């Protein structure tokens, strides 16, 4: 079970409170976590990464275990503490604009 923390607007959109959890079969990477998240909450498709290119939206950031993973390869394994459920995978709306 992977814990995922969403920004407030996406929690509202998905009608969830607090963190969500998703099951990931096989390797736990940013790509597989995002795939599982969008499969469980289809309304989030296109809000975190572009529908067509699957690129991260410019004002969305990915953090975990005190690290900024936004520019890491999507297929790199996530930290053990995320895989083990000790730490959440954080999807963050960048502090930008108004």
């Amino acid at each position, binding site marked *: 079970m992977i814990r995922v923390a969403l920004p407030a607007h996406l929690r509202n959109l998905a009608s969830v409170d607090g963190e969500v959890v998703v099951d990931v079969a096989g390797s736990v990477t940013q790509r597989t976590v995002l795939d599982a998240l969008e499969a469980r909450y289809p309304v989030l*498709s296109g809000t975190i990464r572009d529908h067509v290119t699957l690129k991260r939206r410019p004002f969305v950031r990915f953090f975990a275990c005190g690290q900024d993973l936004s520019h890491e390869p999507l297929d790199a394994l996530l930290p053990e503490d995320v895989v083990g459920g000790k730490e959440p995978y954080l999807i963050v709306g960048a502090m930008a604009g108004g």
Partner: protein
Amino acid sequence: MSRVRVLVGTRKGAFVLESDGKRQKWDVSGPHFGGWEVYHLKGSPADPNRLYASQSSGWFGQIIQRSNDGGKTWEAVGNTFAYDGVPGTHQWYDGTPHPWEFKRVWHLEPSLTDPDTVYAGVEDAALFRTTDGGQNWSEMPGLRGHGSGPRWQPGAGGLCLHTLLLDPSNAKRMFIAISAAGAFRTDDGGTTWLPINRGLKSEGIPNEEAEVGHCVHRIAMHRSRPSVLFMQKHWDVMRSDNAGDSWTEVSGNLPTDFGFPIDVHAHEPDTIYVVPIKSDSEHYPPDGRLRVYRSRTGGNEWEALTNGLPQSNCYVNVLRDAMSVDSLDKCGIYFGTSGGQVYGSADAGDTWSAIVRDLPPVVSVEAQTLDR
């Protein structure tokens, strides 16, 4: 007794204003989708409780919302807007080729007859359609496939398809407008398109009378006379009596012919409304006086409507989709401002009052006339 519902899109959410036919007391609900930009909401003419809303955000992209109960509850529907085939390029601000990239939906135009069919005008400019209530959207590629597409260039607000008019007398005919490409018409249901910009003159482009490249801000028609079109261009108010084949200027005695919205009285096809704005760099009314101008002659002769509108120290703007009329007798007219006011008139513009004063900046206003 008939009622009126006014759908208001703002920079930070949507609001629904409702009143009885007297249009004196209003109930306000919202914000719906708080914190998100709502470029446009519109109800289906075939089922007025079926509403569609374009919800977008610089952070999280595009969402389309649908309501089946007049805006009380909403559900997110499909939000995939993928260009047909290889998207190709349009011109960037510096004249270089730039790939077509979807950014947001500017305008949603429900079919006149089918609540599940909706047209969407998007940025970068293209036309999409759903026939299943918004679950799936497909591009109508004939528009971008018109040979001029690579020459289209964005206006200051982006390369946006912002106006869609459906001809009630001819299901195959539709008009659209793009900033800054111009106006186009299809006579075959969207398969092929014709630029309809003859007669427009735009000083900001190399050839003032080019086939495309004009910054059309808004076009409007009366449903009883769909071959007569009115246009607010970047500068100039224009009229066409032949479905856009040619245009003549009808700015007449307006204090300035720059502006964004233009609309037509619900029962008088030659009564039209604009909101003159000082200039393209000063997006506020001349002299700090907010005035709607009305022509009862289809243009050229204009009168200022000021009763109830601020006549000093007013420096708001009124955007292209932020004016609408109801079809009660007398015709009601509504507009929203960048200062968050929504003004309404229940007597065709003779007198005005603010329905709400302190919303976020208003992007769009759509009035619905309901049977009960």
